[in-house]
């Protein structure tokens, strides 16, 4: 038995509406931004110091900040040179783990939400809680730095 064109259209419209849900749109946008960060780290080579983003903090104070060398660190991690990445920025790996896990979470949570729309509310709750805890753990050295000088 073949499905009628009307039912096919209904399924298509339902999927189209699901994809346009705010949660899915936000997840897609954040995943795209994370991919752009990884792309930036892959395009610029750590061996040639040509990163366009400069440290505003260092320019203002003349003192390097705890996040200096993060671009180098990301580039090296993506190229598998982990030991060198630690030399450039000791917190590089934990920040990279945050971004990588966020990319994974965006994909997984979006696909679960698309397949099981009734789970969206608890999913958003889990997502928010997990992301917040992950953020606090990964960015704790930077947050401590802010609190120390305030």
């Amino acid at each position, binding site marked *: 038995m073949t499905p009628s064109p009307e039912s096919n259209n209904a399924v298509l*419209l*339902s999927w*189209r*509406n699901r994809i*346009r*849900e*705010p*949660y899915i*749109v*936000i997840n897609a*946008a*954040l995943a795209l*931004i994370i991919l752009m960060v990884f792309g930036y780290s892959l395009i610029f080579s750590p061996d040639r110091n040509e990163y366009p*983003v400069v*440290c*505003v*903090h*260092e320019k*203002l*104070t*003349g*003192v390097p*900040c*705890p*996040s*200096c060398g*993060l671009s180098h660190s990301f580039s090296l991690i993506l190229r598998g040179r982990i030991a060198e990445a630690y030399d450039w920025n000791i917190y590089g790996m934990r920040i990279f783990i945050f971004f990588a896990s966020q990319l994974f979470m965006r994909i997984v949570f979006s696909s679960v939400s698309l397949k099981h729309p009734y789970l*969206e*509310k608890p999913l*958003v*709750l889990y997502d*928010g809680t997990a992301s917040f805890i992950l*953020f606090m753990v990964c*960015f704790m050295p*930077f*947050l401590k*730095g*802010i609190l120390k*000088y*305030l």
Partner: protein
Amino acid sequence: MEDFSTNNPQNTGLPSGSENNRPAGQTLGIAALITAIVTFVLAVIPCIGIIAMVPAVIAVVLAAIGMSQASRTGASRSLPVAALIIGIVAFMISFSQIFVAGRIGDKFEREWKGDIEKAVEDVQQNVLKDLEDANVNIRIESGGETVEISTDVKKSNRHDELEELEKETPVTDDTIPGVK
């Protein structure tokens, strides 16, 4: 928690699959929330934390417009409100980075600068001490001829040479007769 189910066509009363079936202010709310989340992460990174104030302001403005649009039509305001809260927190973190930079700058001027100057002076003294005991060799080759000048600048040797010179030079009496 935000209610993300407001985009349901049944809720909006618009035909399913229509391009205009988003409640008023939701598109701006989505844009504001994305901007606010990204800004929040950027604001915590010291290198670029200060410039995160710009997208934080954008997120707050978008959220405010989204909220007013939603209020006018009575649509859900959960997305713009969430964006507004995250945007304001991100702005505050970003703004605090100015004070952090200021404090670090002050500390550098007061404490670390003296330490760095002392370290530079120590290095200079060490270099000068090394130079005092250095041997200098200059070798010039030109047209098959080689001229080699070898000398040392040892401080102890210079002292010896001075003493020898003093011994060799007869002591002259430079007093004027009759004048005491």
